[in-house]
């Protein structure tokens, strides 16, 4: 491939609409909200910090969608993982609490995976059901009470603190995106995930264990949601059953706008990161524009609709 082709491919708007959209909306807010402090470094870093859990969930969802599966349950997993971490932390050391939170996410994801891969149930229905099931579990765990998690070591490492002078949530985001991107683009596993979502039969006859792939991606999505729950808990210094509740639409929109196909075989981790930042920026800008909560929801829904329509229009064949 010569450099001209590389440049034209890099500029391929069909696949890179998220970057353009990001720049346009960023420019819009930068001009409209200049006097309201949108462009201050404090506000911009706030956007990144607030979107960290959604970005981590989006990474897991890119893998699941690429393999031709969907996960609707990650929002509920966030709540279960957050509460598990906070409850365990009241009695045990931090690392045990964090491990328990991660494990709870991984276990629910693996349950989704087993039901989909080996009982051959559609992931849409399985994760719709587990979404409801574990939303209930999260409510029952602490009788709707929120559980504080104020240990400074915990919040420092997983939330509001800094590591090496950098906010820890930014480090988590960068590391998760980098690892996710490399695994997705550069590993055999990533290639097999994409092939499974593209043409499961072709993958199967080529010796790829497609059921194992399905189990792995849904487990991974659960684990990512588990980590997101821990990061939420660290940031707001408490766990509550409502955590993750509002993320379903935002994360799915971030991933789709970021260039991941709803029906598998195509995706982008970097696109999902930018999509997630785009959603966070929208959220932030709409608040600064002093829309009421109900207006924010409507505007956000409309913008997501437009963004998803634009990014899907060219992809459909």
């Amino acid at each position, binding site marked *: *491939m010569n450099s001209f082709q590389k440049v034209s491919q890099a500029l391929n708007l069909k696949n890179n609409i998220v970057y353009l959209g990001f720049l346009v909306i960023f420019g819009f807010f930068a001009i409209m909200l200049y006097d309201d402090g949108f462009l201050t470094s404090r506000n911009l870093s706030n956007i990144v910090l607030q979107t960290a859990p959604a970005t981590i969930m989006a990474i897991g969802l890119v893998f699941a969608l690429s393999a031709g599966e969907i996960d609707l349950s990650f929002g509920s997993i966030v709540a279960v993982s957050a509460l598990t971490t906070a409850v365990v932390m009241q009695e045990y050391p931090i690392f045990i609490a964090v491990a328990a939170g991660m494990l709870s996410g991984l276990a629910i994801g693996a349950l989704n995976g087993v039901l989909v891969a080996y009982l051959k149930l559609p992931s849409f229905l399985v994760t719709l059901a587990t979404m409801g099931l574990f939303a209930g579990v999260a409510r029952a765990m602490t009788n709707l009470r929120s559980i504080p998690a104020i240990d400074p070591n915990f919040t420092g490492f997983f939330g509001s603190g800094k590591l090496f002078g950098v906010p820890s949530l930014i480090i988590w985001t960068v590391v998760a995106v980098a690892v996710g991107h*490399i695994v997705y683009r*550069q*590993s*055999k596993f990533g*290639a*097999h995930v*994409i*092939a499974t979502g*593209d*043409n499961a*039969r*072709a*993958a199967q*006859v*080529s*010796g*790829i264990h497609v059921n194992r792939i399905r189990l792995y991606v849904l487990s991974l999505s659960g684990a990512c949601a588990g980590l997101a729950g821990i990061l939420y808990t660290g940031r707001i210094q408490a766990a509550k059953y409502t955590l993750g509740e509002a993320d379903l639409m935002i994360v799915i929109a971030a991933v789709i706008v970021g260039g991941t*196909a709803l029906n598998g*075989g*195509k995706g982008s981790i970097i696109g999902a990161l930018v999509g997630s930042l785009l959603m966070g920026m929208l959220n932030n800008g709409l608040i600064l524009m002093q829309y009421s909560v109900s207006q924010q929801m409507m505007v956000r829904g409309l913008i997501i609709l437009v963004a998803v329509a634009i990014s899907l229009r060219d992809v459909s*064949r």
Partner: protein
Amino acid sequence: MNQQAPVLELKKIRKTFGAVVAIQDFSLELYAGKVTALVGDNGAGKSTLVKIMSGVYSPTSGDILLDQEPVKFKNSSTARAKGIEVVYQDLALCDQQPVYMNLFLGREYTKSPIPVLDRKRMVKETEALVKELDVRIPSALSAISDLSGGQRQGVAIARATHWAEKLILLDEPTAALGVAETARVESIIQGLKARNIAIFIISHSLDQVFRLSDNICVLRQGVQIGVRETAKTDKNEIVSMITGLSY
């Protein structure tokens, strides 16, 4: 025709599904460098036979000999590991992926010590292979969905060729193609003979079978009616063998 030992030999293969007998008492020898065509009416058992040879089904009774050694294929992976490749009728390509990733689907090269995909090497080998087989595609980096039907078929055949050490099974390789594309694919198949592997082709087109094959095997209702040397038979004989009607 018997100057060499057969690459693959089927001996008294029988396959039943419950009470239904799909294949009975089928024997056939396939030789390196030769194209053997399987013809038969719809429902004669051609697909079942391909699935037995590629390890998807195991025969109810009978033996499969590969290089004169009896083999049992547990599944299509074990058949592939022994050098048998299939070009499926639906091609089994991942449409959104580039040509080179399809060529190495499930068998991607990785670098060492860190096992990241070695795309450069896969692209290079793909380019060399499509050039050698004269599969005319724009680039090894093109997505399958951007290729024509004939080009896709060419990619599927190239993939099989790359990995087959003993035998390529082609299931209706030109069923979905136009005249010019069929000619292209046929010339690719002709080119495979020089690679000293056995080629087994299922086709509904007798014209094609006569153009391509060295031997023709006729299957009717699960029974092998006979094998003819293509040079020593004609269409009338084959048609009457397929239909069971004399003329």
